[in-house]
């Protein structure tokens, strides 16, 4: 049975149930809209159609509905909302609520991801846990074209009941299946295999909430469950030579539960205290899939991980307005993530043995104080300080591949000035300074690789951060609104070791504007400039240091107009363009790069989207809606396609084996024309 027909039949009982409930209702007086139509894309859209269920050219059904039935006497709402019902990414929600008393809802939502690339491959067994890589490899381009896709089907149910005045019960449950295939690797050889995905996520929550007078509290239970049908993928060459079999482990079933209690109390009309307390436990104790494979595990090694993660969160906060002009917010937070998985020896013999598992634990202490003081003429000044102390467990030497730190502290200072409550100019400017440092590094001290000691890892390196942000809204006249935004963040990384990130920079300048041309026409436009830059030092060879400057520059804009052409015809048009450029500059100190080392070329991406829509009423409650969209995607991304310097030749996996190539059209143009009839109840 095809996937399409399977989903059709799965949806049929749901549709029948909904019709049984809503059929009679639709016959009564209702509010809402029903939209039916069709549209067509002129060309395939591998890049822009990744998530919208319309990757391929051709026709699509357009079907949306939104029905609400309200009963004033009983306070009852009955709703049915469907979106994209003619597409693969359909979603539908039904809910019934007796407001302030009891309610229930059911929501189905499908999320599809179509991989934008085409994989030309000779791989056998795609979608299964046994895959064979061709050996000898295929001649690149002579395999089968494979398009990879993952699909999530999510069903969410919610229940609400008011138990007494100010006393509510809420429960929710989500069941989500994820199926499909993701591009992967053989793990140890540059050969293409796919990760078969067939898993389920379940999340449930139940909470009691109490709110009366000055006291509010909520407490309950939150649980999660991950289940997978695949735990191991066995890959071999088609020669089936035993030494060529690689076993790829997959994430195993895990589950968790959490108990929580949160609350707030207004001590006075201007002083409020709140707290949070939660404790959770996640476990993973599945049989390790490689434990039974001869040669991959010692009989002396454990067969299960006995994994256990305990997380404790405690927080108290106090908010007060001691004077008319002063507001204070103080928070103290403690979070402990304790990986209680026992450390055991999993690789007893073989290369590099012994090998132990590597649990990591963290404890965070956060103290935060913010104060706002209101000045005359609607100005306010804001000051704040935040201290974040993080303690970590350091893995034992031998399982440590990079320098590590047990303690890391960061202090952040904030200062801001804002103006509000004006009809013409409102805005704010803020400055933030953060300083992060820690204790001495614990070094890998690997005698076979002493250079492992020689880096400051980005997430624990000493760092100072200077950040500015300003936002101004200006409305000089009623018809015109302008907004200016600016942000600038600069990081400086330091440390006792030679390599790693040195500097980081992020900037954004944006201007937005809208103008009311007349009572029926409105124009808007925006422009954004973004810059992200990182300077890093890496080791090029035993005695050579390389400096990299990675820079991404984005220029984006949007222009739009909407209005009424004549009494009935409403139109809108919009143009947006997003351009990104990535540059990767690499230099060696005091020398030029060897001729054999060709630096990473720039990558340029450009997405242009032009939209036009028109609504024309053809009867009292019905209108025809025309939508036209033109998209253009252009890239010279060489990640899979060796543009410069090798020319437009796809890179191919392996040498003697495999031969898989990955391609995508660097220029994609497509136009959509859709017409729908919208009936309003």
């Amino acid at each position, binding site marked *: 049975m095809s996937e399409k027909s399977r989903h059709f039949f799965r949806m049929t009982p749901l549709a029948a149930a909904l019709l049984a409930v809503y059929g009679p209702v639709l016959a009564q007086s209702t509010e809402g809209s029903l939209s039916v139509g069709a549209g067509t894309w002129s060309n395939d859209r591998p890049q822009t159609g990744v998530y919208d269920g319309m990757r391929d050219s051709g026709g699509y059904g357009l079907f949306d509905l939104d029905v609400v039935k309200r009963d004033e006497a009983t306070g009852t709402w009955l709703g049915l909302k469907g979106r994209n019902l003619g597409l693969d990414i359909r979603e539908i929600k039904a809910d019934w609520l007796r407001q302030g008393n009891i309610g229930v809802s059911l929501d189905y939502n499908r999320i599809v991801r179509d991989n934008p690339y085409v994989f030309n491959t000779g791989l056998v067994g795609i979608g299964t846990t046994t895959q064979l890589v061709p050996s000898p490899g295929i001649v690149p381009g002579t395999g089968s074209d494979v398009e990879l896709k993952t699909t999530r089907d999510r069903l969410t149910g919610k229940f609400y009941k008011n138990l007494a005045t100010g006393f509510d019960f809420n429960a929710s449950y989500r069941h989500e299946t994820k199926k499909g295939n993701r591009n992967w690797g053989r793990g140890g050889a540059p050969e293409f295999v796919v990760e078969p995905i067939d898993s389920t996520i379940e999340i449930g929550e139940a909470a009691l909430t109490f709110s009366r007078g000055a006291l509010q509290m909520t407490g309950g239970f939150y649980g999660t469950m991950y289940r997978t049908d695949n735990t191991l993928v066995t890959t071999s060459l088609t020669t089936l030579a035993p030494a060529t079999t690689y076993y790829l482990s997959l994430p195993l079933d895990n589950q968790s539960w959490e108990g929580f209690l949160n609350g707030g109390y207004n001590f006075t009309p201007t002083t409020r205290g709140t707290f949070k307390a939660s404790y959770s436990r996640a476990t993973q104790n599945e049989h390790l899939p490689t434990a039974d494979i001869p040669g991959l595990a010692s009989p002396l090694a454990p067969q299960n991980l006995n994994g256990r993660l305990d997380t404790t969160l405690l927080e108290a906060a106090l908010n007060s307005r001691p004077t008319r002009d002063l507001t204070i917010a103080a928070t103290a937070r403690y979070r402990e993530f304790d990986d209680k998985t026992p450390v055991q020896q999993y690789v007893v013999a073989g290369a590099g043995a012994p090998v132990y598992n590597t649990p990591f634990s963290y404890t965070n202490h956060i103290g935060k104080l913010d104060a706002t003081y209101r000045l005359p003429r609607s100005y306010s000044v804001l000051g704040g300080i935040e201290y974040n102390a993080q303690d970590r467990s350091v893995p034992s030497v031998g399982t440590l591949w990079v320098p590590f730190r047990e303690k890391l502290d960061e202090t952040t200072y904030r200062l801001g000035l804002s103006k509000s409550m004006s009809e013409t100019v409102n805005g704010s400017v803020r400055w933030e300074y953060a300083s992060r440092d820690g204790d001495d590094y614990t070094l890998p001290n690997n005698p076979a690789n002493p250079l492992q000691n020689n880096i400051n890892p980005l997430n624990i390196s000493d760092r100072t951060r200077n950040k500015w942000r300003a936002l101004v809204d200006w409305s000089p006249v009623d018809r015109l609104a302008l907004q200016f935004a600016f942000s600038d963040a600069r990081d400086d990384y330091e440390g006792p070791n030679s390599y790693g990130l040195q500097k980081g920079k992020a900037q954004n300048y944006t201007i937005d504007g809208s103008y009311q041309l007349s009572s029926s026409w409105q124009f808007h436009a925006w422009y954004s400039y973004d810059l992200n830059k990182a300077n890093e030092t890496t080791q090029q060879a035993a005695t050579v240091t390389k400096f990299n400057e990675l820079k991404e520059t*984005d220029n984006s804009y949007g222009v739009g107009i909407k209005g009424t052409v004549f009494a009935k015809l409403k139109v809108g048009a919009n143009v947006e363009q997003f351009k990104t450029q990535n540059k990767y500059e690499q230099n060696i100190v005091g020398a030029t790069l060897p001729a054999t080392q060709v630096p990473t070329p720039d990558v340029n991406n450009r997405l242009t989207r032009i939209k036009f829509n028109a609504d024309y009423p053809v009867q009292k409650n019905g209108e025809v809606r025309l939508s036209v969209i033109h998209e253009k995607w252009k890239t010279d991304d060489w990640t899979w396609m060796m543009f410069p310097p090798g020319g437009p030749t796809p890179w191919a996996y392996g040498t003697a084996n495999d031969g898989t190539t990955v391609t995508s059209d660097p220029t994609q143009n497509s136009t959509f024309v859709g017409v729908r009839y919208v009936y309003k109840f």
Partner: protein
Amino acid sequence: MQTSSRGRSLSRHFLLFSGATLILLVATAIAPRLASAQAGGPPGPEVCAACHKASYETYIDHRHGMKADARTPAARGGCVTCHGDGTAHVKAGGGRGVGGIINPASRTLEASRKNGICLTCHKGDPSRLHWLSSTHAVRDVSCTSCHKLHTAHDNVRDKLTQPDVCFACHKEQRVQINKPVRHPILEGKVACSDCHNVHGNNPKQMVRGSVVETCYQCHLEKRGPFVHNHQPVTEDCTICHQPHGTTIFSLLKSRPPFLCQDCHASSGHPVQFAGPPTGRTTSPSQLGTVGRGCLNCHTNIHGSNSTQDSQTTGRFRR
């Protein structure tokens, strides 16, 4: 063209006459209701409807307008619940702010005062218990900065339109969600509020207690625990990923091998030069840039459950 003084005088008289007629008509229309309001307390919604028809109609169609629910404004006095006693406002013939009428959407009203009106009823909602400690509250963002009440469609409560509301202030994210690698935000499948509770005070305004716990809502397989855990994965996904959108596959912040070389120095292929190979190769020293980069071989980078020897497991290859 110059206007004569006589013409200006006629225009002035016409305006005065028109204004007086309009006031008279309005007064005639609302007088009976005003009388009833004066007799029995603040004016009810029907009085307000005489001048604020559109707002009234959206109010009665809203959850706030449901009288059967004892908690709603409709069951507790109507418009006065949020807008204050409108007696003086009505008596004065209306006007913006006249008679002490309160408009929670007004730009000129202090944010804490506006928010106080909403929190009277909503501070007990579990997601809003900690509002006063949230970044938005500390920075004087008001409920009405994002929510529109007197409308049939509050954009911020619809996944498809919600991002546009957030982009009113968060400009970088407007660009990021249009980058080639992204979450399905444009399609309304993932909304800002799936990851961020803007009414709460968790770090980075996450809906769960930490970044990783938030990501596990959809990526639960990454939680493990694994036999071999990759340290940054257990700490914070955003060390390597930019969830709003990037130009690198898998939402990576930077392209391999540059990203990996921000933590890993080592002799041999881990510190390889970043450049595409000139042809097909199996050399690990030339494979860190093309395709999945370092992940061509270190394929289980989020964690591994293999018990094979250390050449494969601790290095996340299988």
